[in-house]
């Protein structure tokens, strides 16, 4: 469904610009959950924005259903690193904003939005303004906004980064539950290795400067997933391999 073929991205600037990504190749099947981990600044957000069609690649090709991505498309939705809510619109209008903007809002849109907000624990906050919500609540609104578009490709850029540890675990399981009920490919950027292993079918580990795919780890854990699996050998093995890929050269240099 998503295919990246030797994708490179260089941002123009002084001294030849910044090379954010080099020779990134990746395939994501329909309905697959892929996590991306890597050091800060290794091009994870850039990778998502390429798939979203927000920036064009400088080299290689980004394909969606075998068609080159040339701009933002209706079947992809993105959860940004920051909540990016409209400060003047209440929660409900924020959640329905993309559909209204794309003239895809129907009579059932508002009810579905209320339902999603309820699953995110935001019942009763429909008519609050963003500035009246905590950072974590704002991010949950942003997640609801993306899910309401019923995307076939959901791009999530550290969606739980602003949440406290407890809400984070709760939201992870909630996301898995919603994902399992739909045919939706997810590209999920995170800084948390356990989170990546818990959620994903495969974990893409990126190396920094310029960003490349260091390796792709298959997570063989059965679904439905839960925190009790964290103690299992498979889980520990995957987490250890990812850690070795990220810190590997630094540790060997120290030795």
């Amino acid at each position, binding site marked *: 469904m998503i295919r990246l073929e030797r994708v490179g991205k260089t941002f123009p600037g002084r001294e030849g610009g910044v090379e954010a990504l080099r020779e990134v190749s990746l395939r994501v099947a329909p309905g697959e959950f892929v996590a991306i981990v890597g050091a800060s600044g290794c091009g994870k957000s850039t990778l998502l924005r390429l798939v979203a069609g927000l920036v064009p690649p400088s080299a290689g090709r980004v394909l969606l259903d075998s068609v080159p991505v040339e701009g*933002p498309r209706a079947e992809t939705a993105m959860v940004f690193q920051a909540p990016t809510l409209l*400060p*003047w619109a*209440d929660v409900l209008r924020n959640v329905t904003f993309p559909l209204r*903007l794309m003239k895809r809002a129907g009579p059932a849109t508002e009810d579905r939005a209320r339902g999603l907000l309820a699953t995110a624990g935001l019942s009763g906050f429909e008519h609050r303004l963003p500035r009246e919500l905590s950072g974590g609540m704002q991010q949950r609104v942003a997640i609801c906004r993306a899910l309401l578009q019923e995307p076939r490709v959901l791009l999530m850029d550290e969606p739980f980064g602003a949440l406290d540890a407890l809400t984070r675990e709760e939201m992870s399981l909630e996301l898995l539950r919603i994902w399992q009920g739909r045919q939706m490919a997810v590209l999920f950027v995170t800084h948390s290795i356990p989170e990546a292993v818990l959620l994903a079918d495969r974990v893409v580990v990126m190396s920094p400067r310029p960003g490349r795919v260091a390796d792709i780890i298959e997570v063989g854990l059965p679904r439905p997933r839960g925190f009790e699996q964290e103690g299992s050998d498979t889980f520990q093995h995957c987490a250890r391999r990812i850690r070795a890929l990220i810190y590997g050269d630094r540790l060997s240099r120290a030795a």
Partner: protein
Amino acid sequence: MQERPAGPAGGGFRLPAALRGAAPGLLAVILLFLIWEAVCRLFGIREFLLPTPSAIFSASIAAWPLLLWHAWATFLTVLWGFFASVAISLPLAMLIASSPAVSAAIYPLLVITQSIPKVALAPILIIALGANELPRIIVTFLVAFFPLVVGTVAGLLATPPELIELGRACRAGRMQELLRIRLPFAIPFVFGGLKVAAALAVVGAVVAEFVGADAGLGYLIQTSMAFFRTPLAFAAVVALAIMGILMFQAVSLTERLLFPWSSGAEPPAPGI
């Protein structure tokens, strides 16, 4: 505006609270008048030089139909000038914010209009356009519109890049981006500019009336000073101050009623 503001969160205009908020200002004005009265009486300052507040008050009472009539004439000029500023500034600001090239072309012209003293411009306009309402409205507009343009442009350009990217991800065109994202974001900035413009419109109208008019508070000030009727001139000045305050409050009230989310998170008012 397609994004209607959210329900009655906060906002809401309650009179007792408003009165309580105005009390310190009112006290300060009363105190100032008391000192003024005392100084005039103690030093025996003559009335045609500086009248006491009580003399101004009795002059206002004695000549109130005249005052009201002139105030009405000024008020119409102020309103027309203010609405002309709004009607021209908002589209102009959108044009300026649309591209750096347009902005580079238009901004110098705007700065030139601001550096020309309006008092010098008014007689030229009157000769060109005749002794009617139009030159006065134009002068009022010229005095009032600039902060509104600057404030609106600042708001349109201050829209966070993340919100612009959200719009692009939702496949919004440039027009949609402007109307559904940039313009709503700029609302608090627009109202900052409107408040300054409302106060300046009063200044502009009086400047125009000084130069060429047969009615209005500016005209009244000139004629009464010519006959040393200083208390009446001061009464006209007080009427102007009241008009400025009312204009400012009307804009604030509109903002609180139509955009309750805006007044809570106000940006620093743009400089004049």
